[in-house]
């Protein structure tokens, strides 16, 4: 279990998703990586049933599974203000959510998943995932994990080099948006810049990154009119990091 970074792959216009995946797998295999099974990360969203009247969107609970942690279910609750509360639970949590149908309704159309092959290359674990939402292909998401390190700041350069090497794309020098320094409220009540790339990495960070990317994909779809007539998402889940109460961010509406 080490530092994991998600990298969305920019899709060229004329190529299909399967073709890209094939091309990247060939590159990895020729590099010397070994194919080691499949992986799946999926996300289901539950919206709180009685919608509040004053126009603020209801609370959303995202339930995610990661095949890398098969015994656990992750859930992130998004209140309307942009604050996220995350939970790691046993797999039995899914059954609990089934019982909560009175308070939370599941929006089946927004079930999104990233599925694909898993490669092991020395200390790296690289996953090539094709993101699909209700059988519609959305994009390609690369997940790279460096198993020997627990702090991003120590190994970001190496990960970046690895990504640039086999993906042949330009990866920015800055830390990914999830790890960017954020303003948080200390317990003393002051605002402070908190550098997430110096923290110990946790499995919930992987899942939160996935949620961020999935949200982007959903928004991307709803901004571009959507495929297959999906309804617009109440975008209360802001992809930007947690902001303090003093610096509240308004809702981003497409």
């Amino acid at each position, binding site marked *: 279990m080490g530092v994991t970074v998600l990298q969305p792959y920019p899709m060229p216009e004329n190529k299909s998703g399967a073709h890209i995946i094939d091309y990247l797998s060939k590159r990895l295999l020729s590099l010397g990586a070994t194919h080691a099974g499949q992986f799946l990360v999926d996300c289901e969203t539950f919206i709180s049933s009685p919608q509040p009247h004053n126009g603020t969107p209801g609370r959303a609970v995202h339930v995610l599974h990661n095949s*890398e*942690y*098969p015994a656990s279910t992750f859930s992130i609750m998004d209140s309307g203000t942009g604050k996220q509360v995350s939970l*790691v639970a*046993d797999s039995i949590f899914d059954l609990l959510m089934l019982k909560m149908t009175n308070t939370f309704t599941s929006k089946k159309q927004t079930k999104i998943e990233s599925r694909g092959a898993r490669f092991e290359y020395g200390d790296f674990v690289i996953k090539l995932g094709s993101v699909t939402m209700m059988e519609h292909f959305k994009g390609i998401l690369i997940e790279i994990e460096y198993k020997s390190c627990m702090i991003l700041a120590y190994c970001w350069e190496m990960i970046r080099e690895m990504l640039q090497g086999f993906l042949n794309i330009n990866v920015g020098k800055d830390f990914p948006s999830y790890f960017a320094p954020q303003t948080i409220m200390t317990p003393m009540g002051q605002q402070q810049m908190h550098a997430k790339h110096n923290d110990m990495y946790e499995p919930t960070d992987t899942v939160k990154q996935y949620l961020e990317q999935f949200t982007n994909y959903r928004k991307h779809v709803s901004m571009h009119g959507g495929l297959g007539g999906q309804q617009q998402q109440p975008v209360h889940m802001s992809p930007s990091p947690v902001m303090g109460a003093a610096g509240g961010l308004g809702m981003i509406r497409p």
Partner: protein
Amino acid sequence: MSNSVNISVETTCEKKIREIGYDGTELYQPAPTLSESLAKCAARIDFSKTSLDDLKKEEKTAAAAEEENKDGTQFQESLWPWDAVRNKLKDALTEICVLSDVISIAKDKRYLVLDPLLEEGDDTKPIVQVYSRKKAISQAAQVLLSGAERLRNAHSEQRSRNVSDFHIELLRLRQNWRLKKVSNAIIGDLSYRTAGSKFGMSGTFEVTKAEEASDDDSAISSTTSSSTATNNGMQMKASSALRVIVPAELQGVAYIKVITQKDQEDLCTAQVNLMGHGPNITAQVGVWQKTLEFAQNVLFCKELFAQLAREAIQLQAPIPHVVIGNQIRATLLPNIQLIISLCHSTTFDSNQPAPINDHDHVLEHSLHQLLREVHYKNSHHPFPHPASAPLGPSKKRMLAGPMAADRETLLDMTKTQTILEQIIAQAQHIFMRKRTQYVLDTLARDVKDPQIVSHWNAMNSPTMSCVKINIVTHGYDAIGRTSLVIHVKERSLKCICRDGRVMRLSYEPQELRDLILCQINSHQISCLVSLARCMAWTVLSNSNHLGIGKVEPLGNASSCLLASPNGDRMIAVQIRCDPQIDVKVYIARSPRQDFFPSPLVPEKLWENLGGNFKEVKFDKIEGKSFLNKMEFLMASLTSNTA
């Protein structure tokens, strides 16, 4: 003026109709006159009700008579309504007159005296009471005495007897074993089922009264014993001890024998004990308790052996395990075998000779403990016991979900070791430990110069032990000491030296020996360096691995070059550990003795360049140990001349 209103008051009762004429006129019965009504009321008075004695009798007779003469009296009533009244009044008057006569006579006190009744009747009552009570108490005493008599008889009978009562024995049996009454027979259970065992063999035994007459009822099977069991209900005065009948396959004595054997690959000499059925019932081994305990032990050993045999067949080992009859052979290390056998003797013979090979009691006990651990895990589930999740996973597995454990961790949790694997690991470790001890002890005995001191840890696990080895030279402990720690595992050793080097050795004893010899080698040189510093000699150079001379199996020579305090002497030491420690010492003097100016090197000053090294007969030097000799050598070569 108010006009008064006339209010008419009429009775509700109408007159009875006596006759209705043909023309419709109704003739009413005239209402009874006052005298008639009085007569009616007077006739209703029953004077007989005043006397209590005649009340009941006369009521009955009067009631009977009334029934009969109802018609008659009604007839007579109209004629003489006052007749009965008159008669009764007459009687009453007669009695009153008599009463007044009696009273007047009694008042005269001449012919009739009225005396109060004496109290003598009361005096007799307490005595009667006492008599009656005495009788009652004596009757009660009789009852109690007869009961006590019976108890005393029973007690004296019991004491006089040698054979104990069936029921007392049954009570004691019940305190130790689980018994159940099924129709007429008493069935007991001596299996480990309630302790968590899942073995198929049933461990039921039967409890019956032992027949005193016939001892060799060998044909008693469970069906016929039920007939003898019907006697259990009766209270038999000539009571006998109870007998337990255990199933045929559990009779006798059994134990598991574990032997580690060396260099015997000969399979045809393996003893095959066929566990046949011996005689049906062996002689009772002492009391029933011992019988039952032995039978339970037999069941336990059978279960253990069955489990081991099953695992031996299922496991894939590099050298496959062999199961023949009641023996399991497993290979621990090359040429070393572990033999687990189930010894079951149905004829109990207390003069049995001790087995020839002495078996490993520690491993046998370990086997018993391992099976008990399996039983325990079957019946005890680790906490927490959740209401909504499966029961059984360990605590680590329960926490794996909320702690986001990854796939490797989860896979590790699923790996379990079977009993056979565990016992093989333990046996291997015991063997490695013995071997390591042997190597260290022989080395300590053979190598006298630096002393090898080994400290074994008192606490160790069944599959790992640790030993700390100190190499010191006697007398020079403060100068230097080489220490290393050896972790003895099942098939390998791991040595950690003081400088942090970690070396992994295999099970060959020679590797450990070589390692210790190399450590002795480096110990000598490092102590010499420290000693030279104490003696004010300069260490010019030292090396642990020179790379000179012929190739040796144990690494190469280590060396040290020392210079005296005023530089006129040099000592060169070379230590090899060929098969033994071999020390070579050379000394050189600085102004050469054998310098002669030649045309090529004319100046005299070149004599200071240093002479040839000459070997010292090191074993002839005085000194107890290498360091001692070196100290003397250095002392003798130190000169005061500047």
